[in-house]
């Protein structure tokens, strides 16, 4: 299905919330996923792969401590990215077991000033170059094993994708919607009437 960026962002926000993320991180995550999609990454698939790993984990356990470790046995790129952004950037980080590290990249785009140095995120089999203008992935878009290195350095983007819509296959869309669905309160007859506001006739 062909979605507007806004629809994709809203759907992803619900999915992160449905997977247990705090509202604030949900805003960060949905923006990051939308940005990835704009730069040509299959962001829907990235989101599903991440949430399938982190859905049972409390957000607090995923937040990195000052030494960039966390209580959970995997790290979350949203929690890492948000923490880097809050600090205004970083110099060099070597991280262990970050699921879908490419989702760190949109946070870096936001903190890089115009004409400033960029970042490179490297993992086994793939890398993501990040500048003020955007990001580009080379090799495998997903992490499997080994350390993840985030380095402040000159980065170059030979070609910058600029998508204005998001194409989601049915399976990916259904998987995201399954997470999103957890945010909806089951309907009851009472809520149907009271919650939306009954009242005077609407056909006159």
């Amino acid at each position, binding site marked *: 299905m062909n*979605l507007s960026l806004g629809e994709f962002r809203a759907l992803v926000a619900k999915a992160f919330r449905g997977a247990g993320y705090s509202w604030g991180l949900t805003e960060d995550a949905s*923006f990051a996923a939308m940005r990835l999609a704009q730069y040509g990454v299959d962001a829907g698939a990235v989101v599903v792969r991440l949430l399938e790993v982190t859905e049972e984990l409390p957000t607090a356990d995923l937040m990195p401590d000052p030494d960039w470790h966390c209580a959970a046995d995997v790290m979350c790129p949203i929690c890492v990215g948000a923490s880097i*952004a809050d600090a205004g950037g970083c110099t060099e980080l070597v991280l262990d077991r970050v699921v879908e590290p490419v989702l760190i990249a949109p946070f870096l785009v936001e903190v890089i000033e115009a004409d400033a140095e960029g970042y490179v995120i490297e993992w086994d089999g793939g890398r993501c170059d990040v500048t003020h203008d955007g990001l580009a992935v080379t090799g495998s878009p997903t992490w499997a094993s080994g350390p993840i290195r985030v380095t402040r350095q000159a980065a170059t983007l030979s070609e910058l994708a600029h998508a204005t819509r998001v194409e989601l296959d049915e399976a990916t869309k259904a998987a995201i919607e399954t997470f999103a669905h957890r945010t909806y*309160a089951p309907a009851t007859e009472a809520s149907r009437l009271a919650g939306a506001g009954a009242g005077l006739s609407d056909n006159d």
Partner: protein
Amino acid sequence: MATATIDRRSPDVVMRLDRMGSFHQSRLSFMRTLLRRMKREAWTFERPRFDIDDQGVGVALYSATTPDRTYTLVAFAHDLPPEMRSDRVIATAWDATFALHDGVPTEADIERLRANVPLQEAGRVSATELTLSRANRSVRLFSTVVDSLAAGQQPNAELVESVGYLMRTTAVYGSGKFGAADRASIEDRPELLAPFQAEMLTVFLIRTFVMDLVEHMARVASPDTAVALEPSLRRRFGVGNSTGLGMAPFLITHPRLINNWIAAREEALARVRAVELATEAEVEQFRDFVRRARLTVDSWHSEHEIQQQKLAMLDADLDLIDRHLEAADLAQPNAWDTLVRWAHETLSLEGQELIVSLLLEPYGHLVDELADHMHADESSPARIDGSMPIADAKATLESAYGWALAIDWDAQRSDARAWYVSEEKLEPRLGERYEEPIGDYEQPLQPGRDASRMYSDLAAWGDDRTLAEFLRAHPEHRYSARRLMVIGESPYGEIRDNTIDAEMLPIDLLRAKLSFFGATHFDPRSDRWVRINMFRGAPFPHELVDTDPDAWTYPTAGVGA
């Protein structure tokens, strides 16, 4: 000429729900922004197609052409059995459905839209559509007007005044909804930069379609005797609109945008209050608008007790205003500032806010340009300054959320409500937290309570530690922390009232937003949905060239009523 400086009213005064629920349309309302631009740029309008059959079923196209491009309303008219007619969002069929197409639609576009637009939420539009909308007939008026016109008569003017529209829209979706174009993809066009311009254009063109449809149905009924509506009576038909809770969260989820709306209006008021000496013409214009506002109030009916009380107060306010203006010498220095101070001391909130709107009327040259500052870049979440010392975060919370810190959140009445999204229709609803199993599904639409919780947790943190450290330990406060960043730059961005209080009225949120659209005749149908009228009195597209695009929002004596 502005010589003195007057401060804008404080957010603590303006951003209260009862005051926001008393806002009126003004020169800065989005309908008026659109009409001024249409006039200034001499937009042209056409009806390239009107294929509506004798049963009132078919398709019609209405185009609006700017100096740079064309937009086309694609209107589908349906034959809806009366038992299916409902304004509620749970409806599945409507009397008419619409999409605003970006450009001139091809036959293939029209067929694609024919397969989707009548389905509304269950269909899909594309990046070449800007809005998706639908409308239902007014049972009270539509067939009566058809019958009158068919018989060669004009409809009863009193009846027209009492209802005010032939169809009411029940949703106008834009901004990427259901596959439509993202706002970000069109906001570089000057005509769409101001908020909700595509939506307002949609409704403006729908109004013309509805009038054409009713005249068409009269001609079909009696080709030999049917007449068209007399132009001045025709203008007394607006487009109705029913708005429910779906719109309410918008004011909370777009703090930067809402700040810019309110700040523009408050700046406009401050500029007028700073006028040292009003000219005779400006004074006369103001007095004229006060007289005309009375006509609006006279034709403003509501069956709802809350609004009836407010209208009674507004009526009494207008008496007080009349008496005050009989004696007041508006040629004195600082007369407008004096009047505003008097209004705040004397009138109900309805009357105070009406005075604000009326005072802007003679001062287009001072205030209209503020309409260019009412949009906001909301493409990315506000950056959180993690280096902010905890002491500063606490101080900002105290100054911007002092009202919330003063609330006893342990009292059930303080958080009696919860906003949630229902599984059934995926629409926001408001429930009773202590009576329904909805607490776990709560949406982040209670910034006051959440800011208070953050403040409580900050107490355990040393003043010299940083917000970044705090948020690593308390990711649940990230949402409030971000709003804290926004409110520093956007002081009108937060409603300074409890949005989950037992006594909170959602219609206050709806009215605040709809007043910025330019709506009139707010008619709540319960505490959480409201009917309004849009473009009532406005010129039709073909009349714009000879009309003042701002002169229509209050009736003139002798027309209608």
